[in-house]
């Protein structure tokens, strides 16, 4: 029997038994859309969280003082604390041909005050390149000037919220504010970057790196960001930076250079596992659909015994009958699976329109997996009923439903 004929034959069966078909489809729709929805939600959450934390581009390398002990081996025998990362180190990094932008970072908290208004704030000492690396936009005034890194100019760029809280509606540009025991002239106000889990730039004050060093009386850098010319150079640049600094530190490899991807990778893994687990739980709901399919098919087989007998009398062998019933289940699974996917995609699309920030949506593999699971479930649970149909003796089947139509 041709596949197209089987499809047509079964289409008549499923379209005639509307209620039965609707029940099975409903169960499959719930199962398939649960899988797709939950994975879609999980993926959306994962991408959202990663997006929030991935404040740096793919080309950016992060240099941190100290050796990250990934192997968990013995602590260094020499009691020496790791050497600090200096401004000179960062300048050496900047001179590398692969490095396009470089921003050293000194970070600390200080109390800001302006005309009696006080506020504790995060202060970041850095360079002009930082604006480009973090893709910051200046709303008023200008960003930190391009100058020698050692130059401790008394200028500051402040976040929007900080500006509002310290200056209110008054203009802030050109005003002097106090931070700890130093004074800074406001030369720029950042435009809102939105809520970012990485760092809230609405509440930050940016100053030249040397000024921050002086303010916090701290030589060592917290981090150095280095943006490489292109992604192809990332690994190369990573090695170069490491060797340059190691050389400057008398051959001791006491800094760590990582990409943001590496930092996020382990985090990503946890979220991914979680999504999979949730999707797997949803897939279990398909077993419920499977049991329903089995019952429906068993009923179908017993209701259609005389039809099975007839088909055998007309020349169908056991295999054909088995295939006929299996394909009926597959047809139901196709209908339910497609409807389930459409429904869940519609819900995800609706979710996206309500929460545009969260990239809700399941990856293609999840859709394929949900769909195939539905088909597989149908096949597995329709197997016993189909075998039962195929094993019927033609004469017994024919006699059972004597006197129809």
């Amino acid at each position, binding site marked *: *029997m*041709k596949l197209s*004929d089987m499809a047509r*034959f079964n289409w*008549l*069966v499923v379209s*005639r038994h509307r209620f039965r078909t609707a029940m099975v489809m409903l169960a499959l729709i719930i199962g398939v859309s649960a899988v797709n929805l939950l994975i879609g939600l999980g993926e959306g959450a994962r991408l959202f969280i990663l997006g929030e934390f991935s404040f740096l581009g793919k080309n950016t390398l992060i240099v941190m003082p100290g050796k990250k002990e990934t192997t968990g081996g013995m602590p260094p025998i020499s009691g020496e604390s790791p050497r600090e990362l200096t401004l000179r180190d960062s300048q050496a990094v900047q001179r590398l041909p692969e490095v396009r932008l470089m921003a050293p970072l000194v970070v600390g908290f200080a109390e800001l005050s302006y005309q009696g208004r006080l506020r504790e704030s995060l202060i970041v000492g850095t360079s002009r390149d930082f604006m480009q690396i973090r893709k910051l936009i200046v709303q008023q005034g200008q960003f930190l000037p391009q100058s020698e890194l050692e130059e401790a100019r008394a200028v500051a760029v402040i976040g929007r919220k900080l500006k509002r809280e310290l200056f209110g509606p008054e203009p802030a540009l050109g005003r002097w504010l106090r931070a700890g025991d130093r004074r800074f002239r406001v030369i720029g106000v950042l435009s809102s970057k939105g809520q970012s889990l990485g760092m809230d730039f609405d509440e930050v004050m940016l100053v030249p790196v040397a000024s921050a060093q002086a303010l916090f009386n701290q030589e060592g850098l917290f981090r150095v960001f280095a943006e490489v010319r292109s992604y192809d150079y990332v690994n190369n640049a990573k090695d170069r930076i490491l060797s340059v600094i190691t050389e400057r530190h008398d051959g001791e490899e006491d800094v760590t250079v990582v990409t943001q991807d590496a930092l996020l990778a382990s985090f990503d893994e946890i979220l991914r596992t979680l999504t999979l687990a949730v999707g797997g739980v949803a897939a279990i709901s398909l077993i419920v659909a499977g049991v329903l399919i089995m019952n429906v098919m068993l009923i179908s087989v017993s209701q259609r015994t*005389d*039809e099975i*007998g*007839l*088909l*055998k*009398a*007309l*020349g*169908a*062998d*056991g*295999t*054909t009958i088995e295939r006929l019933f299996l394909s009926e289940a597959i047809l139901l699974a196709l209908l339910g699976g497609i409807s389930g996917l459409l429904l869940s995609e519609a819900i995800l699309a609706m979710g996206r329109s309500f929460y545009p920030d969260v990239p809700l949506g399941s990856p293609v593999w999840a859709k394929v997996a949900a769909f195939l699971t539905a088909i597989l479930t149908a096949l597995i649970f329709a197997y016993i009923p189909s075998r039962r149909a195929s094993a019927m*003796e*033609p*004469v017994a089947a*024919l006699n059972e439903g*004597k*006197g*129809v*139509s």
Partner: protein
Amino acid sequence: MTFMSSPVEAADLVELKSVDRHFQLGDQTVKALDAVDLSISCGEYISVMGPSGSGKSTLLNILGLLDQPSRGEYILDGISTTTLKDKARAAYRQSEIGFVFQSYHLIPRMTARANMELPLMLAGISPKERAARIKPLMERLGIADRAEHLPKQLSGGQRQRVAIGRAIMMKPKLLLADEPTGNLDTASGTEVVKLLEELNREGITLIVVTHDLELGKRARRQIRMVDGRIAQDVLAGN
């Protein structure tokens, strides 16, 4: 009238050799067929009569490979069917044997055309060729204008003609009809019988089970069954 003593000829289409068909009902054995010997040549027209429960349907089912003997041998077209597997038996039913039932056995959700199409569909014949084969047959059976009707929209006689069309769709050698007129009034019953006889004249081997003495007497060879045995096997007009 002469008593037939199972003649063995080269042209035998069907040969039963001491076939038994026993049913076990609790601790009781029902002998639906009891040591039946029967030879049928190509092109014969046979009626099978006898009291209810005498084994007529059982005989027909075995001849049609719908049922298997408990004992004995059934040779169809020179080949012993006793050891044939399901696939081979199905292939015989498909191409060599046509069945007509008292209750028509049409699939209620399918149109007259689709019902007639079934054997062709099962045989994997293309839709184009199916259409080409069905059209002239429907015209011949006088149901061309009912092609798209469902069985419940057809009269008994029309239904049985659809069923006959379905049975001969694959041009079988052997046409088995189990009380084909049992559910019909005299007029449409006679029409159906005439149709079957016409097919027989064109060469098909026809075996009709009937309770109707008049109909039974129209056959050239008449078999009478009693208690699972062939009690009488006569050639009419001799």
